[in-house]
């Protein structure tokens, strides 16, 4: 009886959060799936079954072979940016986390330095994006500097509003999502293991590859899930840093929405969702997230 009562109270305590997720997350997802199979005209959606959202999206994919159709090209581009961002955030995030976890010995300094890395995360992403304009623009510091040194004659045009600036901004914004989980895995590694490896004659590199990386794997996987899902669905960074000229998986949805083609937008969202779930489920097969908190 008391057991039942305690569990009922727990359920009541969790109920408000459940309600919010039901109303603003699960139900909306359901509507996305339903509406993706609706018909539409120039200005509104029509609640009648139709796969036009999907067929419009894949238009030309068979006819134009062997040329790639727009949607496939866009997804390939998105994946390319995703892999680049993932690789860079992993490399930088791992190195920063390693430094914080193994080289900073005092707990206070660890907290202070982690906070220094975290504070930008609490400030606006848009501002952190436009902050690159004075540096990378045609008359920005980088171009001025390079011209001053006589390395280039004309300003480099690809620095801003290009794929380069998109990936740069993504790395700038989201490396923290790698640092935190990897750091979290690393501080749990028993330091004696590393000493034992050194005593057994392992080089620094061997210790890193055979001990630290395998034990930090959960953090690496969690960080990767964050970064990959963010980049796959991103449309703000691609929009602002790409000068609204670069297409991405998220950007297609936004474009369809601006054209009020809701079923087509929803169909694209379902496709994006499917691909994201595929990536995550293959990553979670490597690690059980819940055990790692």
């Amino acid at each position: 009886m008391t057991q039942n009562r305690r569990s009922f109270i727990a359920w009541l305590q969790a109920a408000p959060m459940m309600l919010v997720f039901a109303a603003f997350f699960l139900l909306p997802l359901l509507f996305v799936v339903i509406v993706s199979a609706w018909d539409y005209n120039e200005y509104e959606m029509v609640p009648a079954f139709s796969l036009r959202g999907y067929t419009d999206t894949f238009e030309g994919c068979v006819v134009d072979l062997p040329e790639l159709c727009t949607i496939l090209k866009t997804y390939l581009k998105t994946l390319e940016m995703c892999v680049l961002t993932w690789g860079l955030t992993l490399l930088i995030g791992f190195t920063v986390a390693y430094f914080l976890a193994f080289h900073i010995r005092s707990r206070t300094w660890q907290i202070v330095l982690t906070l220094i890395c975290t504070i930008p995360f609490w400030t606006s992403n848009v501002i952190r994006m436009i902050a690159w304009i004075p540096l990378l623009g045609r008359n920005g510091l980088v171009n001025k500097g390079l011209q001053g040194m006589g390395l280039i004659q004309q300003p480099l045009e690809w620095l801003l509003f290009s794929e380069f600036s998109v990936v740069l901004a993504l790395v700038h914004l989201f490396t923290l999502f790698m640092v935190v989980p990897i750091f979290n895995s690393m501080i749990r590694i028993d330091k004696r293991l590393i000493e034992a490896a050194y005593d057994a004659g392992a080089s620094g590199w061997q210790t890193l590859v055979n001990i630290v990386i395998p034990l930090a794997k959960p953090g690496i996987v969690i960080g990767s899930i964050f970064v990959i899902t963010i980049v796959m669905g991103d449309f703000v960074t691609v929009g602002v840093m790409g000068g609204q000229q670069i297409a991405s998986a998220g950007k297609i949805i936004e474009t369809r929405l601006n054209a009020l083609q809701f079923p087509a937008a929803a169909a694209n969202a379902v496709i994006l969702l499917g691909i994201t779930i595929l990536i995550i489920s293959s990553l979670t097969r490597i690690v059980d997230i819940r055990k790692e908190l």
Partner: protein
Amino acid sequence: MGEKRPRSFYFLALFFVAYVLFLYGPMFAIYILSFQGPDGGLTFPMNGVSLVWFERVFSGGGIVNIGAAFKRSLELGFVVMVLTVLLSVSAGMAFRKPFRGATVLFYVAIASLIMPSIITSLGIGLEFRLLDDFINGLGVEGWTTAMGLFTSGLGAHLTWTLPFGLLIMFAIFNRFDGRLEEAARDLGATPWQTFRHVVLPIILPSVVGIGLFGFTLSWDELARSSQAIGSVNTLPLELQGLTTTVTKPDIYALGTLTSAVSFLVIFTALIVILVLQARQRRQGSDAGKGMV
């Protein structure tokens, strides 16, 4: 200490410093440029120093009704912060006992966290559009829309802030000594007294942290709001709109002001957390103080 640092330390320290410069350098560039002189442009060099661009933001010159967006975002951020704290602490307490749907709620929260924001936003937008159609279908006179800052917008923000709140609660309770509560119970405390006088004082610094996440994430939220906010815009949405049209440093001035609010909230929260922790160290737990 006193032990000699390996060479790799200096290399990694240099890397870390470079990373911090990479994080903060660009931000500080626009903070400086927002004080650009009246004839200055979007890039260095500074053409004199002035407050012209801040005046323009405040007077609304060149930028449409930024004051109203500023106020809206502040209000929404505050409401999101309060709800995030209340719902997260409550759910966090729940997860310490077994209950039906615990696993589902956990995975839903994680899914909400990593769901591409455009999908969540689109879904909420569709939900409210269909709701409007439904109400109009009922023939309600003068109905416009249910979509708004404190309905769909609030919901969209909560799908982003609540998972962070819940994860922080998990982190707290993984390190929490449950015997403290048992002791309180043995001394005859009711569940509410146990929470109020034993648990809450101990977790309070982290709860402030949840509030910090709640406000700042809402204050800067953009992707999830984009389709779910209705006819009025939040500050980040206005800012994003300006990136394509503004060619003068007033956008930097606005950025500096927005960041100033963020920094104010961040440092206030951090100071409160430090003070609370110092008090805990000095007095031990506050348990029971309220009942004397």
